[in-house]
């Protein structure tokens, strides 16, 4: 952009004045953007949620002319109260990487050529029509994202489920939080946490279950640390499979063997009952006991199918089930000492302590992901430590709108914006709001994410449109799925902001507007919906994902369902979507309210947010007249499940003798396609590495920085060693961050998943190491 010289000097003049004011008046803030609108040469500040994790920090974006030039934390946002992490503070630089995609591209004779975006949209619509005509509606698919805005996901659902009539709609949140959903649904009958971040300001004990919050949710972690410093009765327990920055900051760090968190959770429950720490009154009034199938498999084969069954059991049955999980028995399974298990149980069991459990990918990306969620809920339900300030089992998310777009809008094969496709009433509601015949909506789910890519490999799916995600880096057992998409008669559309390994395999690339280059909403981990305006224009012909979908829908003949003008479509879409959630259990805030605030929690009833669900002091949906109302289940109770420990899908053996664990680092968001374009973050963490235990490294004869080959039954990657770095795995485990597409660690991982949630386990497979 052109930047006038005098404007630049005036910007310097303003900066000098702000610096002087800050020195003279510590804490002074110039965030009142409304009085600066239209002030040429000045910075205008506009609110938005950060887009680099699921925390939902409010940021103020400084705009000069048409360019975002600065970021600061929004002091009015209750999530972060003015603080950001390193990604948030540098977030706007991700808009301005030199290789932004600004024009549409189409593959012709093997090479990508630039075309006007309207031509690319014509090609997409024509190809969809042709594919449906030749192969049927279930030959086309859409794969979206927890980084989709809520309107993005909503129009995708309306187009694919309501208009085209296929349930071939999935989102990458299947890879990050599907187990959280099935955990909530099986234990409470409703999705998403009952508590909120305010729990951090009330809890005395925090237990992080396989959750490196110090790096993955640093703003929330700092809030925990601030509470520990301010109050003298707060402690943090880190329960993990490797030592991380979170372990180092915790008051106590406990390591367990991979997958054995199931046994540890059961042992805590055994100990709570054994010591009579059960909250009997809560249990009698609000809990029922259940068991499901066991030996449920791992989903590594095509067409794997599983349906759980529920059987009611008694408290005595549950007690008997737990006899296999005495602390002493579980010490042998998990490596956690009986003493530490008893200590954990004593914290949960102490009626004077408020306990919050946090977890994220460690429990979600787990072949028994649903079960481990159930088991942690069991602990909170036995002790009645739930739905009150500070007592909270809290599932965190990794993407800015995994909750808002995927869980609430329902952009998964089985789901609708309200309910599921298998339910007659839910289909009828969707058909009425969408103004389509109810027969359009297929009552049978098709493919979850892993199976969708298997279907693409097999040829059952011929066309896939991918938006805001990078599956050619993130799919487990990646070699199979990359080979699948490259087969001759597959047609792949990718909407993206930068070139990635996924745009490399595309037949059409659509340049997408990113974050605040479009209007939209995200939904964070605490049920908070956050609106952001179009603050700066997108580059070139880049277009929002919402508008891309609307343009294609109209070309397919669905003008009636997508009638909105470009100026007002987001507000109209939001008000249509809200109709799905009317009522005290899930009411969403009106568009006009979202415009004004840094975020609004649902259920939003009579102008008030609901901070603690199922608690009549806070939740207007409670109607049973008791001190809690778990209204998600038909028996109005929360369910305790007897779920056993079962081993991982693949464990180290004589040939492949190490566990492979994968994850993230603080500097980069997911596959790094945006944060690696931010110079300071890229320089801070330029490439990936494999963390080794120092003794394993010595046995292998490698020192820091030397190359190590990681080999599994599916693939191999050679990368530099990190020894005694930021994280340290125990002996027999290696850890690899997946942000760096120079080292595709998912060529090594296994595509096993939780049979209930269908979420893959990226934390456990077997590998061997060679010095390269």
């Amino acid at each position: 952009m052109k930047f006038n010289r005098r404007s630049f000097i005036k910007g310097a003049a303003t900066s000098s004045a702000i610096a002087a004011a800050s020195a003279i008046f510590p804490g002074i803030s110039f965030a009142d953007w409304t009085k600066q609108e239209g002030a040429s040469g000045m910075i205008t500040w506009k609110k938005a949620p950060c887009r680099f994790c699921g925390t939902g920090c409010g940021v103020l974006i400084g705009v000069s002319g048409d360019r975002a030039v600065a970021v600061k934390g929004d002091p009015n946002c209750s999530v972060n109260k003015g603080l950001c992490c390193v990604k948030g503070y540098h977030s706007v630089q991700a808009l301005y990487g030199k290789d932004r995609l600004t024009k549409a591209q189409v593959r012709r004779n093997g090479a990508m050529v630039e075309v006007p975006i309207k031509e690319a949209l014509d090609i997409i619509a024509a190809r969809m029509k042709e594919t449906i005509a030749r192969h049927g509606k279930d030959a086309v698919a859409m794969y979206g994202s927890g980084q989709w805005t809520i309107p993005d996901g909503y129009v995708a659902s309306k187009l694919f489920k309501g208009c085209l009539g296929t349930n071939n709609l999935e989102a990458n949140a299947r890879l990050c939080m599907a187990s959280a959903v099935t955990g909530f649904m099986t234990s409470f009958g409703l999705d998403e946490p009952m508590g909120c971040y305010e729990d951090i300001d009330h809890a005395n004990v925090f237990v992080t279950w396989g959750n490196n919050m110090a790096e993955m949710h640093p703003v929330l972690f700092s809030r925990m640390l601030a509470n520990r410093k301010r109050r003298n009765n707060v402690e943090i327990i880190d329960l993990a499979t490797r030592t991380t920055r979170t372990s180092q900051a915790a008051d106590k760090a406990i390591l367990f063997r991979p997958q054995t968190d199931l046994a540890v959770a059961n042992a805590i429950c055994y100990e709570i009952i054994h010591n009579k720490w059960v909250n009997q009154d809560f249990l009698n009034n609000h809990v029922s006991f259940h068991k499901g199938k066991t030996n449920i498999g791992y989903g590594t084969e095509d067409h794997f199918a599983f349906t759980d069954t529920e059987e009611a059991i008694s408290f005595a049955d549950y007690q008997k089930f737990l006899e296999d999980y005495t602390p002493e028995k579980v010490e042998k399974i998990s490596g956690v000492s009986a003493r530490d298990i008893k200590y954990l149980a004593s914290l949960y069991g102490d009626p004077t302590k408020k306990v919050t459990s946090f977890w994220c990918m460690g429990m979600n990306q787990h072949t028994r992901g649903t079960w481990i969620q159930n088991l942690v809920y069991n602990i909170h339900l036995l002790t009645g430590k739930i739905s009150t300030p500070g007592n909270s089992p809290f599932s965190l998310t990794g993407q800015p709108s995994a909750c808002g777009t995927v869980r609430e809008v329902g952009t998964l094969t089985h789901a609708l914006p309200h309910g599921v496709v298998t339910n007659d009433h839910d289909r009828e509601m969707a058909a009425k709001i969408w103004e389509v015949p109810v027969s359009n909506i297929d009552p049978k789910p098709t493919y979850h994410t892993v199976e969708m890519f298997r279907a693409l490999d097999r040829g059952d799916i011929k066309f896939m449109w991918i938006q805001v995600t990078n599956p050619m880096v993130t799919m487990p057992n990646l070699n199979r799925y990359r080979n699948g998409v490259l087969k001759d008669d597959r047609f792949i559309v990718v909407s993206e902001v930068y070139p990635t390994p996924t745009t490399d395999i595309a037949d059409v690339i659509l340049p997408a507007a990113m974050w605040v280059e479009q209007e939209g909403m995200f939904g964070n981990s605490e049920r908070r919906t956050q609106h952001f305006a179009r603050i700066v224009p997108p580059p070139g012909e880049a277009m929002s994902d919402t508008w891309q979908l609307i343009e294609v829908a109209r070309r397919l003949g669905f003008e009636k369902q997508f009638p909105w003008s470009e100026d007002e479509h987001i507000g109209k879409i939001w008000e249509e979507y809200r109709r799905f959630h009317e009522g005290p259990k899930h009411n969403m805030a009106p568009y006009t309210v979202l415009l004004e605030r840094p975020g609004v929690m649902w259920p939003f009833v009579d102008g008030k947010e609901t901070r603690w669900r199922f608690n009549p002091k806070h939740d207007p949906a409670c109607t049973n007249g008791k001190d809690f109302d778990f209204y998600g289940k038909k028996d109005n109770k929360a369910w305790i499940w007897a779920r056993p420990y079962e081993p991982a899908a693949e464990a180290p053996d004589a040939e492949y003798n190490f566990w492979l664990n994968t994850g993230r680092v603080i500097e980069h968001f997911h596959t790094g396609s945006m944060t690696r374009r931010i110079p300071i973050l890229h320089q801070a963490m330029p490439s990936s590495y494999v963390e080794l235990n120092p003794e394993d490294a010595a046995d292998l004869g490698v020192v820091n920085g030397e190359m190590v080959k990681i080999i599994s039954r599916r693939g191999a990657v050679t990368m530099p060693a990190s020894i005694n770095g930021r994280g340290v795995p125990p002996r027999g485990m290696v850890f690899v961050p997946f942000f760096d597409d120079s080292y595709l660690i998912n060529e090594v991982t296994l595509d096993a998943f939780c049979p209930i949630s269908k979420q893959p386990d990226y934390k456990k497979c077997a590998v061997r190491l060679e010095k390269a």
Partner: protein
Amino acid sequence: MPIFSYLVIPTTGAIDQLYDELTAIPWCEVMVAENKEIIILVTDTPDAVTETELQKQLKELPSLQSMSMTFGHNDDNQPGKPRGDYEV
């Protein structure tokens, strides 16, 4: 063609009046602190004569208690020619 910035302190209770008066002057751009009674004023005048008149006008504002200069620039006092517009 001078450009200056100032920290401006209003007389007690007159920040809104001062804001209105400053924004009504053609050569002035203002930014108000949200948690202190402070205004940042940036002035950009075309020549020395206008600058002198502006200074006089500012001093006569009843709602303005004091001004502290934080930045000053004058093209007429700079060595060489300005480079003009450039890409950032």
